[in-house]
């Protein structure tokens, strides 16, 4: 301890430089961790977090017995699985195409266009959905009308949302992911590729047997990152596109929107905190498990 202090004294400038970030994280990350004891309390605003009365596991019991826990967890999980699968498939395909296709200018333009939605907030994406699928004014129902078909009430249809949410997740994120995979491909030595070509492997064989294996490390890291966040939903996507519409909660409610709504609209803050803590713990456990598995298979890919 004494040597610790002596060392810090000698390095006090460095320590001071670390302080702003240290204090910020202490306040905005570690204090809320301590505050998660709220999940075991009945929150009274005037009493604050620490003086509110304890209620044991009542908040959790309520959250699980109501059936909400299961249903938002399943939704979060399934949506994230869909996002991971669809987005990675598109990203890898586009990266391969962009790296091997001819047509320099065409590639440059399409890559820029694909990356553009990444710069747009979910609020704007919400406006776009409104423009297309609003019942009265949307383009979609306009087309239905000209085709002589009955209009569709997309906003209140659970099945439509299942498709649209996956679609818009890809719309916004695939451009970004493509660049990551593309940079992974660029980092690969192209000599192997040329050698295989001389040996008579056609383009598809070269992609299958050389390029894809070379992309595995990047895939593993991205997969690891997304799997470890599998219990954490993209709040903006769900909240801005769907909004708060009780009619489609079955299909569109994820843990994040559930916690947010419980916090904002219901007075049951303790239960909201319980749901949030449940999510954090699930995330944490998933990361530890995934990391352990990856470490056992190939330790290079492990996060820590």
């Amino acid at each position: 301890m004494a040597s610790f202090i002596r060392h810090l004294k000698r390095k006090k400038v460095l320590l001071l430089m670390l302080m702003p970030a240290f204090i910020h994280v202490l306040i905005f990350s570690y204090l809320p961790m301590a505050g998660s004891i709220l999940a075991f309390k009945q929150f009274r605003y005037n009493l604050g977090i620490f003086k509110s009365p304890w209620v044991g596991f009542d908040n959790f019991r309520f959250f699980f017995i109501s059936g909400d826990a299961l249903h938002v967890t399943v939704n979060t999980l399934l949506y994230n699985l869909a996002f991971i699968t669809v987005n990675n498939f598109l990203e890898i395909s586009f990266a391969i195409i962009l790296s091997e296709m001819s047509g320099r200018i065409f590639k440059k333009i399409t890559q820029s266009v694909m990356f553009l939605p990444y710069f747009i907030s979910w609020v704007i994406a919400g406006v776009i959905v409104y423009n297309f699928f609003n019942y009265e004014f949307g383009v979609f129902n306009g087309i239905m009308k000209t085709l002589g078909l009955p209009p569709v009430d997309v906003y209140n249809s659970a099945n439509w949302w299942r498709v649209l949410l996956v679609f818009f997740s890809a719309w916004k994120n695939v451009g970004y992911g493509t660049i990551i995979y593309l940079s992974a491909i660029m980092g690969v030595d192209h000599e192997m590729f040329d050698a295989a070509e001389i040996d008579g492997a056609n383009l598809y064989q070269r992609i299958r047997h050389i390029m894809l294996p070379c992309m595995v490390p990047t895939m593993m890291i991205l997969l690891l990152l997304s799997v470890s966040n599998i219990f954490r939903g993209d709040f903006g996507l769900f909240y801005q596109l769907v909004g708060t519409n009780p009619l489609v909660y079955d299909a569109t409610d994820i843990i994040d929107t559930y916690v947010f709504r419980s916090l904002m609209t219901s007075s049951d803050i303790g239960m909201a905190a319980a749901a949030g803590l449940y999510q954090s713990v699930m995330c944490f456990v998933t990361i530890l498990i995934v990391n352990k598995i990856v470490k056992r298979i190939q330790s290079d890919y492990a996060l820590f």
Partner: protein
Amino acid sequence: MRKRRKTTDVISFNIIGYIMLSIFSFVCILPFWMIIVGSITSESYITAHGYSIMPVEFSTESFKYIMNDATGILRAYGVTTLVTVTGTFFGVFINAMAAYVLQRKDFRFRNFFSFYFFFTTLFSGGLVPWYILCVKYLHFKDRIYALILPGLVSVWNMLIIKGFLGGIPDAVSESAHIDGANDFRIFIQIILPLAKPVIATISLFTALNYWNDWYNSMLFINNEKLFMLQFYLYKLIGSAQGLQIAADKAGVVIERPPIQSTKMAMTLIVIGPIIFLYPFVQKYFVKGITIGAIKG
């Protein structure tokens, strides 16, 4: 450049490539086109037939309508600019400073501090305690710093900068040390200029995050004078009354305000700067992702 023989596999691959890229690019760009078309189509056409894909009845009534009372949107622009500039400047500075300390090999407890930061990416207390802390104890309601503070420190950015700084030889710091410079001066005068590429890209990503932020406004701001741009738009789309009120305030009596086209015009005004800057900054973002991907 290698010479490509036009064998069947290459030709078929190119055809598939052109088709897939064309479709996806079209899907990515179409919504922006639709917003533009919606903003310049006459309100009477939209109310009768809905938004259209091709411009039909050209009209600038929506923009004229916004011009009647542009104080709201202008103020939102002001707030967003202020928040973005301050947040980006201090945020990047704080992150870079911490990153520098964490990669100094003579700082003995850097492993402890690294873990201290890294752990927050693994576990968090969740939204509720954080929100109550901010509102009840830090008094974030309707304060401008409520929009800046939460996004200031990003551990991911810190790790990316740290990774980049790790590539600078220690001898650089050491020789400056011998010359009598203290650690802060070394950081400012020697390390920061060397780290320009990573600082530039991290700044761009941070600025984009602040610019597109609506979440903090939604959580903490009730006073519409402090609305950030995205949240201002969100409020406007959500309630057509908002537009009506704006017109009443301006003292303009309009039989039927062009609500639907104005929503699109407002959206266009909000994304305008990003679309305009996009061609110029795009390549720096691409570079930034590449830096992050290698180190990440």
